[in-house]
């Protein structure tokens, strides 16, 4: 069945809560090459006036699209993906941080769908204008 069959505007295609820990941040630093110490050192984060060690914005962006990829399940690929970073995600050393991701259909055309993401941490959204274009695989 094609990815786009029966897809309706407003339909939620995926919902997930993801748990990030300090380990996730260290792993992402290594994989991405972004070793800014605000993502793993409490003393440096405090020194520059942050409320704590923050997740990399690009980690949040990278994680947030995964429910869409799992939904597409090799029937489509992400041809465009954009976000605005609106609020930092503070990752507690013991408790970590939970991100809740909701993916909703915003538009459908001949060969692609636009899926909009809502990503919340606590009760606040952390990404704005988070839009994924999924193009069907022929």
């Amino acid at each position, binding site marked *: 069945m094609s990815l786009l069959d029966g897809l309706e505007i407003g339909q939620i295609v995926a919902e997930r809560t993801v748990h990030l820990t300090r380990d996730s941040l260290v792993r992402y630093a290594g*994989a991405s090459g972004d070793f800014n110490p605000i993502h793993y050192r409490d003393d440096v984060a405090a020194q520059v006036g942050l409320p704590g060690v923050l997740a990399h914005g*690009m980690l949040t962006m990278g994680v947030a699209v995964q429910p869409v990829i799992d939904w597409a399940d090799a029937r489509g690929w992400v041809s*465009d993906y954009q976000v605005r970073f609106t609020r930092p995600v503070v990752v507690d050393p013991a408790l970590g941080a939970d991100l809740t991701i909701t993916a909703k259909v915003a538009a459908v055309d001949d060969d692609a769908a636009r899926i909009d993401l809502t990503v919340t941490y606590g009760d606040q959204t952390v990404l704005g204008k988070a839009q994924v274009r999924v193009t069907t695989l022929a």
Partner: protein
Amino acid sequence: MNPELTERAFTPTAPYLVGREKVREFARAVLATAPLHHDPEAARAAGFADVVAPPTFPIVIAEATLQQLLAEPDAGIDFSRVVHGDQRFSYSRPIVAGDELTATLRVTSIKTLGGNSMVTSESAMTDAAGAHVVTSISTLVIRGDES
């Protein structure tokens, strides 16, 4: 910020060879568990030559162009004041292991707003045949001096 940066031509970066294990490592880091990112057979079954990189993978390659931007002696960018404002990836085709990608940086806009500067730049990435694969578009916000 030097507004003339938007006129500047930057040298294309040295080719970046996308490795299968690097794709897997990056996929694990962004909790990408789909078989396409890890299993070459699953990728081939979906019509790809090898494992497919997660959508945000080009940020690894864009790092080289970010360094070019920061290294411009007259750019006036203090990295400790930089915050990532927004990010976009626009693809012509997915990145797969084995691709050799070259990135060319272009600064598209510089704006000043309430003491902060916003620099938008694009890194256009092409494969070994010279065909476009993806463009990474980033806006960096450089916080001004706080009073």
